[in-house]
């Protein structure tokens, strides 16, 4: 039977960054991915890097630390991941949104995040393409965006260079537990003996834990986005937000506008204009 020091289940950005960090520490992890790298949530998102996102006192410090580590890793990769920390504008178009935004800014400032509140006129000076009717905006200079495909692949490439083994097309079907400890990972074709498993299967992690009596409250959500043809720079800061919508222009000029959040289980079919009624 094949053995591994650590088995990582899932080839998304979390699994690949864990593989990179373990390999950097001298561990030789084995990563198993059911489809291909960044095939699910890691490849279907807007690539936002938000130091101001997250819940103050809970996830906010993690977001700040993540952005810091991401910037450090980006320098070590030796290949571009299209990481831009050019800031983000969050827009308010009504008095209600403005009150909510002032509250957002106050809580972030109390947590030590650099956030500026500005008038609609000031915001339009930063982003001349914005239309009229803007009440005000919050500007977060440390926020930014990244190409999520390149990020996941950069972690995987750097992990491989440091001794990690990464296998796409390998489906983990079961975790074998004996005397309260994991002892093996069963794939469709073989059993791999291991004392440690990192479960990074995203919306599929719950299904592997359920037979062990562990309930993980993580569910899939479908998000649909519009993407434009590549066009000249329109969004100067690269990133805009308003309630229920986010806009990002990537380095090639495509503008991503989205997204929905829908509880439709694992259904990932788009039903926008491109696919008919």
């Amino acid at each position, binding site marked *: 039977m094949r053995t591994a020091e650590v088995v990582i289940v899932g080839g998304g950005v979390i699994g690949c960054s864990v593989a990179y960090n373990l390999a950097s520490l001298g561990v030789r992890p084995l990563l198993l991915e059911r*489809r291909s790298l960044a095939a699910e949530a890691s490849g279907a998102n807007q690539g936002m890097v938000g130091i101001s996102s997250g819940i103050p006192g809970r996830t906010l410090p993690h977001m700040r630390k993540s952005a810091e580590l991401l910037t450090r890793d980006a320098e070590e990769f030796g290949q571009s991941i299209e990481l831009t920390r050019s800031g983000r504008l969050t827009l308010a178009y009504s008095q209600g949104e403005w009150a909510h935004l002032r509250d957002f800014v106050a809580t972030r400032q109390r947590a030590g995040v650099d956030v500026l509140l500005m008038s609609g006129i000031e915001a339009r000076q930063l982003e001349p393409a914005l239309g009229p009717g803007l009440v005000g905006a919050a500007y977060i200079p440390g926020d930014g965006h990244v190409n999520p495909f390149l990020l996941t692949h950069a972690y995987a490439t750097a992990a491989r260079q440091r001794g990690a083994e*990464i296998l796409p*097309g390998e489906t983990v079907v079961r975790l074998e537990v004996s005397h309260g400890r994991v002892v093996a990972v069963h794939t469709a074709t073989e059993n791999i003996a291991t004392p440690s498993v990192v479960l990074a299967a995203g919306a599929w992690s719950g299904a592997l834990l359920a037979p062990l009596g562990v309930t993980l409250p993580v569910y899939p959500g479908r998000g649909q986005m519009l993407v434009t*043809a590549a066009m000249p720079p329109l969004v100067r800061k690269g990133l805009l937000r308003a*309630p229920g919508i986010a806009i990002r222009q990537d380095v090639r000029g495509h503008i991503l506008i989205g997204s*929905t959040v829908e*509880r439709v289980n694992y259904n990932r079919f788009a039903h*926008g*204009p491109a696919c008919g009624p």
Partner: protein
Amino acid sequence: MTDQRLRTIVCRCEDVTLGEIQRAIASGGRTFDEIKRVSRTGMGECQGRMCECVVTELLCRDAGVAPAAVVPRSVRPPKAETPEHESSDQWFRGDLGTSPDHPGAR
């Protein structure tokens, strides 16, 4: 291989060259979708219908992927750009769906 051959366009929709695909394979890509996400091959109008066989051939020949073990690519209909006024009408009519959790989300 000569520079000229490396500059051969494999993906005509996104102008991806043989050299770029070989670099994606050299950095560890082992499936069509991985090569696509790194190089943009197969992300254009035809959604991989033209470049798939070349990329698959290179995966088998250069990366040692067994033909029987080739992971199938995600299949999408050919891409057609929708004029802005049509897509925004449908978007703002709400035809793209809303979430019970985030009724305001689009």
